[in-house]
């Protein structure tokens, strides 16, 4: 039975698995656009893993009391277990024998970014800091791929801003045409109320057709709405279609 088997092993020993999850978490946080493409099972395993780390950083943003300093250090150390510690010794040891390599401190960078940026960003978000989007299957091994990304990233914020701008400019442009379309909308929404329609049409038609009809207005009143209402209906339906779109 699958009872109490909460996680995937991903075909690795526990050391290998932990190492890989740390690498994935580091990559996700350090990535330029805050997203990585992996297989779907890895993404699904990574999600609770990084989100726990992010929650720790989130808690660090609203510490109070005398031991706030100590607590923030403690949180940082707890979060550090989600990343590789970095290898500052490496530069020295390999420097003698061969060409110098950059120190492996990506995990340290990720931790710093986690507490400096992400904690503040997700301060008011109760979990759910990541999003997984399925991509379909990969050529070669047919593995299901997915994007895992941090929510509320730069690209998203820019998209929202752009949308807001567009909406603003659209509303200012619409204002002129709004008056004309409003009249149509009103008649469309008041389909059942024929009386209201009739009085409205009467005004309009009298204005449009001038005084000549003024005398015969009372007689033709019963006939007029027929033709008038037909055109109104087509207008209303077209308006409705627009709103449906």
């Amino acid at each position, binding site marked *: 039975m699958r009872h109490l088997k909460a996680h995937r092993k991903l075909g690795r020993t526990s050391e290998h698995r932990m190492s890989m999850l740390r690498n994935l978490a580091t990559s996700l946080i350090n990535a330029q656009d805050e997203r990585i493409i992996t297989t779907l099972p890895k993404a699904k395993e990574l999600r609770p893993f990084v989100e726990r780390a992010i929650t720790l950083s989130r808690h660090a943003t609203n510490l109070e009391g005398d031991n706030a300093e100590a607590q923030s250090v403690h949180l940082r150390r707890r979060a550090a277990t989600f990343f590789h510690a970095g290898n500052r010794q490496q530069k020295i040891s390999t420097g003698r024998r061969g060409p110098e390599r950059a120190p492996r401190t990506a995990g340290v960078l990720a931790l710093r970014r986690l507490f400096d940026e992400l904690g503040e960003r997700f301060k008011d978000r109760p979990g759910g800091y990541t999003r997984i989007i*399925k*991509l*379909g299957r990969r050529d070669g091994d047919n593995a299901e791929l997915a994007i895992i990304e941090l929510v509320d990233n730069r690209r998203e914020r820019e998209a929202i801003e752009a949308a807001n701008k567009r909406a603003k400019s659209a509303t200012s442009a619409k204002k002129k045409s709004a008056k004309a379309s409003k009249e149509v909308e009103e008649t469309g929404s008041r389909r059942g109320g024929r009386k209201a329609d009739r009085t409205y049409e009467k005004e309009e038609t009298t204005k449009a057709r001038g005084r000549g009809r003024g005398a015969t207005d009372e007689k033709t009143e019963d006939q007029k709405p027929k033709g008038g209402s037909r055109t109104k209906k087509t207008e209303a339906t077209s308006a409705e279609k627009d709103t449906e779109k």
Partner: protein
Amino acid sequence: MPNPKRRHSKARTRKRRAHDALRQPQTSVCPNCQEPRMPHRVCPKCGHYKGREVVQVEETS
């Protein structure tokens, strides 16, 4: 060694295989480009998902 006792008729073979047909995978239509795509997945043609998200850079080949 095990050996077949009787001849295996075509009808038997075909009856067995009557249920072996594979089904076409379910697809839905991408609301952005009207191409078929797998449901709940990014459209491979235009890279859209859930309306706004351009997830991939569109490939021009």
